[in-house]
C-alpha cells in the first residue's frame, strides 16, 4: 500500500479534486437557490420562492423559448454544415489542408471577439447591409441583428461559424475511417456517389453524430460570452438565453438566490439532455458486451 502511495496520489488527487469541486459547487448552488441571498450568500430558507419568481419572469420564459429554438436550430444547422464541409473536403480536393485550417480557425478565436466582429458584420448600419448599399444595391435588406424576431438567428449564424469546424473535423475523420472496401462494394453494387453517401457511408457515422450533437448542445445551453458580445440579449430582451439570465440575476441584479435557482433549472435542462444520452451509451455498451 505504502509503496503504491505516489501513484494513488497522482490518480486520485486530480480526479478527486475535479469531482469534488463539481459536486460541492453543484450542491452549494442548489443550497443557495433556497436561500434569500442577494449580494452575497447568506443562510436562510425561502422554499421555492426563488424558483417561482424565476419561472414567472418574462426574461426566463423568453430565454427558455429561445433556448429551444436556438438549441435545435444551432445543433441541426451546425451538424449539417459540418457534415457538408466534411463531405466536400472528403472529395480529395486540392488545397484540403488550407481549407481545413480555414474551417477550423474560428475555434481559436474567443467568443467575445466572435460576438463583437459578427455584431459589426451583421449590424445593418455599419456592416454587410451598408456595404451592399454602398455598392449600389440599395434595396438589399439584412437587418436580422436589430429585428426582434430574427435576432436569435444572428446568434445561430455566429455560433455556427465558430463551432461547425469542430463538427467538420469529427465528421471528416469519421468519413476517412470508413472501410474503403465497403465503398468499393457499393460501387460494384452500382451505387452512385449520392446513394453511396446516403445509404452506405453516412449511416456508419451516427456514433460520431451523437458525439457532435452532445457537444454542440452543451455549447448551446451554456452559450454566454458570444451572446453577450453579439446582442447582449437584445433587441429588448428578445435574445435572452438561460446562461445570460443566470449571470444577470446572480451578478448584475444582485439576486444570488434567484440566479442560483436559474442555474439549477439550467442544470435540469442539461440533465434532460444528458440522461437520454447516458442511457443510450449504457444500452450500447450492453449490446457490445452481448455481441
Amino acid at each position, binding site marked *: 500500500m505504502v509503496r503504491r502511495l505516489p501513484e494513488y496520489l497522482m490518480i486520485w488527487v486530480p480526479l478527486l479534486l475535479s469531482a469534488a469541486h463539481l459536486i460541492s459547487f453543484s450542491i452549494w448552488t442548489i443550497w443557495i437557490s433556497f436561500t434569500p441571498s442577494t449580494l452575497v450568500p447568506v443562510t436562510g430558507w425561502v422554499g421555492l420562492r426563488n424558483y417561482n419568481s424565476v419561472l414567472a419572469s418574462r426574461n426566463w420564459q423568453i430565454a427558455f423559448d429561445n433556448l429551444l429554438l436556438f438549441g435545435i436550430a444551432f445543433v441541426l444547422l451546425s451538424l449539417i454544415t459540418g457534415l457538408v464541409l466534411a463531405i466536400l473536403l472528403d472529395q480529395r480536393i486540392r488545397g484540403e489542408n488550407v481549407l481545413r485550417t480555414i474551417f477550423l480557425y474560428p475555434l481559436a478565436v474567443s467568443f467575445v471577439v466572435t460576438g463583437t466582429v459578427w455584431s459589426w458584420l451583421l449590424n445593418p448600419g455599419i456592416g454587410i447591409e451598408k456595404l451592399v448599399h454602398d455598392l449600389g444595391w440599395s434595396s438589399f435588406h439584412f437587418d436580422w441583428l436589430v429585428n426582434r424576431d430574427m435576432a436569435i438567428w444572428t446568434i445561430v449564424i455566429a455560433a455556427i461559424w465558430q463551432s461547425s469546424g469542430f463538427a467538420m473535423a469529427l465528421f471528416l475523420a469519421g468519413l476517412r475511417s470508413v*472501410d474503403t472496401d465497403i465503398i*468499393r462494394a457499393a*460501387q*460494384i453494387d452500382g451505387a*452512385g456517389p449520392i446513394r453511396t453517401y446516403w445509404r452506405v457511408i453516412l449511416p456508419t457515422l451516427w456514433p460520431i453524430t451523437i458525439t457532435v450533437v452532445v457537444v454542440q448542445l452543451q455549447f448551446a445551453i451554456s452559450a454566454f460570452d458570444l451572446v453577450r458580445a453579439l446582442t447582449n440579449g437584445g433587441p429588448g430582451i428578445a435574445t435572452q438565453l438561460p446562461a445570460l439570465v443566470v449571470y444577470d440575476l446572480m451578478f448584475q441584479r444582485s439576486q444570488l438566490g434567484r440566479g442560483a435557482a436559474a442555474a439549477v433549472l439550467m442544470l435540469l435542462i442539461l440533465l434532460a439532455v444528458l440522461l437520454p444520452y447516458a442511457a443510450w451509451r449504457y444500452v450500447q455498451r450492453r449490446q457490445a458486451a452481448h455481441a
Partner: protein
Amino acid sequence: MAALSIRALSKRYANLEVLKGIDLDIESGEFTVLVGPSGCGKSTLLNIVAGLDRASDGTIEIGGRVVNDVPPKDRDIAMVFQSYALYPSMTVRQNITFGMECRHVAKAEQEKALANVAKLLQIEPLLGRKPSQLSGGQRQRVAMGRALVRDPLLFLFDEPLSNLDAKLRVEMRMEIKRLHQRIGATIVYVTHDQIEAMTMATRIAVMHRGVVQQFADPDTVYRYPANLFVARFMGSPPMNSMPARLEANAGGPVAVIGAGRPDEVRIHLQDYDAATSYVGREVVLGIRPECIAEGDRVFSAATGAPVIVTAPVELVEPTGAETIVLLRLGGEPAQARISPDIRPTPGGTASFALDTRRICLFDPETERLIA
C-alpha cells in the same frame, strides 16, 4: 468464349511498377485462382478488373467487350472482399438487395432472387440481422450471397476465407467449390493459401513481383512448376531444391547430388528427355518432400524400384499424421515426409526411398524448368 481477357496489363504507382504486362485468358465457367506472396499485385489486378482502379497500360475484356473505360457497376461483375465489406448499417436482407435496388430491379424480382440465394446459402434465418450480429462464417456467407444474387458474367473473390479459422475455412472451401460446380460461374479467386488454390482451381495463376509466373491447371503447377519460384511457393513443406550434376549414362542421364562425396546420391532420370541436353552441366534438382519416404515405402503405381539411400538425419518433427525429417542428401539439406510411426533418431542415419519419377530439373541460371 473467353469470359475475361487481360492483355499486356501494367500498373504503376509513382515510381513503383506493381503489375508488369499481365496476359491472362480465362474461359467461361473456369475457376481461376490467383496465388502469390503478399504484395505481388493480386489485389491490384483484381481491382483493375473490377474497375476500382485504372490500368496504366493494356486492355481488359469482359465477355468480349473492352471495359477499360466502363465504370464498375456496368462491368457485370460481382466481388467478394477479404473483409467482406458488408454494409454495417443494413440488415442481411438489405445488404443482399442493395445492388438490385441500385439497378432498379422490381421489388418482386428482388424478393425472388433474395429467396433463392438465401436458400442456396442457408442464411434464411439471418435475413433480419445486422452484420455485427453474425459470426465470421455467416458474414462470409452473406458476402457470397451479395455476389451470387447478381448472376454476373464474372465473380471476383479477394481472399474471402483468410479471416476465418482453420476449421471453418475448410468447410467454406468445400462449399464454394460445390457452388461453383452447381452454378457453373466464372470465378477469379485470390488467395495465398496453396491448399485452397490446389483444391479449388481449374487453373492456377502463380504471381510474383507483378508477373504471372505460371498459368496452368493445379496438377501441372504442382508437378511441373515453371520455375524455382513456383516450385518452392507451391507445397508445404516446399519442394527441396539442391544443386546436382547431370552425367551421361546408359539408361538415360543420371543426376548426381554431392558429386565426389562419399555419400553422393545418384538418380537415374526416367522419361526426362529434356535433361539430355544438360548432360555434363550443373542443374538444380527439385524433389518434393513426399517423394522422400522411409526406406521400405512402396510408392504406389511405381513402375520401377525406388532409389534407396541412407542419409544422416538432422531433425525429426512428428506431426501426428506424418513425420517430417530434415536430412542430408549428398550433403544438401532436404525435408522428407515419412510415415507417422517411424521416428529416426536425430544425429543418426536412416534409409530413405526416393520417388524418382517426380523429380524436376531447373536451369541454375534462369531458374526455369528444364522441359
